[in-house]
């Protein structure tokens, strides 16, 4: 994609993004916000898996940490903006603490360890007094800055998509620079990366924390939007969903995370509607959403192993008779 086409495409996407909250009804707006939040987390997953080659099956844990942090602070009377700022910081700090022992593991072991972290956190949140147990925290005040208070869902939609834009910009800036090159290098060979003077362990930890930061920010916005958080809001399925989104969109592409999140969210919404038609059994919605993750993952890995965005851009490049790259 050349610069001018890229700019035009970017402007179009921005215009549509800004216009949508004005035209969508409330239920569609809810989907739009949750989609933006999922994309925010998925950008982090894509950075972690696609660029740095590390797997996290527990990204939902950092989403939950961000949400609980912002909720607890807001309920304690801290201004919402400060609570929202604290959410990504808390997630990042937790990632640094958790990651220090965990990142010694690789591949499947790391994936299962991160999954275990999420299960432990969920069970803790369900038991502890200050997190509200299984019922969770309710009556979280609306988001606001100074005397302005978020009244409708549209404000959360703008907040979400502004957050997503920030996350995408930071990710792009990081990967196209010295630390980003170091991350991409260690994804291929930790030995060769170390021999180029890269402190491999520290870089893995920082990228783990950065991806957690994105999830924490999304969690913070989520808690203000829904007004309550509970362990049930952060099932393990949510972490798997982020991975499916990242893989479907294309690992190691920033736009892939957004495209993947959009595709999966819309698909799940459509199936939910189908499953809640009269005559469908009550377990249909959950069975169908599990099935769709599995099916979509298998189909993409078989037919578009690099994901949607790389497959499409390769096709475009072929039409222009250029060498496909990225």
């Amino acid at each position, binding site marked *: 994609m050349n610069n001018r086409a890229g700019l035009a495409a970017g402007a179009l996407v921005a215009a549509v993004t800004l216009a949508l909250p004005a035209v969508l009804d409330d239920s569609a707006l809810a989907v739009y916000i949750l989609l933006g939040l999922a994309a925010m987390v998925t950008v982090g997953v894509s950075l972690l898996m696609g660029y740095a080659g590390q797997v996290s099956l527990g990204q939902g844990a950092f989403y939950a940490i961000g949400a609980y942090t912002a909720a607890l602070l807001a309920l304690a009377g801290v201004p919402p903006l400060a609570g929202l700022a604290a959410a990504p910081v808390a997630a990042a700090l937790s990632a640094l603490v958790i990651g220090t022992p965990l990142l010694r593991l690789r591949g499947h072991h790391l994936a299962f360890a991160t999954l275990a972290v999420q299960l432990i956190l969920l069970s803790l949140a369900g038991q502890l007094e200050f997190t509200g147990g299984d019922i969770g925290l309710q009556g979280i005040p609306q988001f606001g800055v100074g005397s302005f208070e978020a009244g409708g869902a549209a404000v959360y939609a703008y907040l979400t998509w502004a957050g997503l834009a920030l996350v995408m910009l930071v990710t792009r800036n*990081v990967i196209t*620079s010295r630390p980003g090159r170091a991350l991409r290098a260690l994804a*291929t*060979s930790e030995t060769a990366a170390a*021999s180029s*003077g890269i402190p491999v362990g520290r870089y893995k930890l920082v990228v783990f924390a950065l991806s957690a930061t994105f999830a924490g920010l999304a969690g913070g916005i989520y808690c203000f939007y829904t007004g309550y958080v509970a362990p049930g809001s952060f099932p393990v399925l949510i972490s798997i969903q982020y991975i499916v989104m990242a893989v479907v969109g294309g690992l190691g592409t920033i736009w892939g995370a957004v495209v993947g999140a959009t595709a999966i969210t819309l698909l799940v919404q459509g199936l939910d509607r189908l499953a809640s038609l009269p005559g469908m059994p009550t377990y249909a919605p959950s069975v169908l959403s599990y099935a769709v993750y599995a099916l979509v993952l298998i189909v993409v890995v078989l037919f578009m192993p690099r994901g949607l965005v790389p497959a499409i851009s390769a096709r475009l490049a072929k039409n222009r008779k250029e060498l496909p790259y990225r």
Partner: protein
Amino acid sequence: MLTVTGVSRSFGGVYAVRDVSLSVADGEVCGVIGPNGAGKSTLFNLITGHLAADHGRISFLGQRVDRLAPHRRARLGMSIVFQAARVFRGMTVRENVMVGAHGHTRAGFVSAALRLPRHRRDEREIAAAADRALERVGLADWADRPADLLPIGQQRALQLARALCARPRLLLLDEPASGLRGAERERLAALVEELRADGLTILLIEHDVAFVTRLADRVVVLDLGQVIADGPPAEVRADPLVLAAYLGQTS
């Protein structure tokens, strides 16, 4: 510059390297040769820090390094060209070489994310250094291509460019001639000659005796994990122990 003193390493009770001592002087090209299984690769990994020694000490530039992590040794000025292709995938040739400059540049995550002036200045300098290194190894025309598409000979040259971009004090080459065809091998030899002329210190670990004896000022011969000869190429070639080690193995 580099002093290895009484270094040993065993795997499951079998010594791969046993009580090896050698030193590389400033500006010297030192070759390490030996038949297959002589312990060359183990020695290489002990020097670079990818394996820990059981006994002995390794000093580099007057500092003891045998307990330092590989990336710390790299930052002191050890640059490596691996035998196996270690080209970073999903990056252009230029980006691959720019990774080499990691050790002597500073811009971190924050200045990269915020695009601070320091980051821009660093990026410009790193890209210029990478282009000079690519020019040097004859890959300037490939700079913007994906590195994974390079043929094997060029991948070796790419690694060499990355090593040079790190501003090395000591260049370590692990079997650089393996897998290269005649013309590629000649170009590599010419390049090593040039680097020596520039005063770079080089440690060359190589299976191909002719390649080493032609380039090295001094040759160390390993057999069964031990040093059996150490001296100028002509002397070493005539050494009966060396002849026996090689003759016993091959013809």
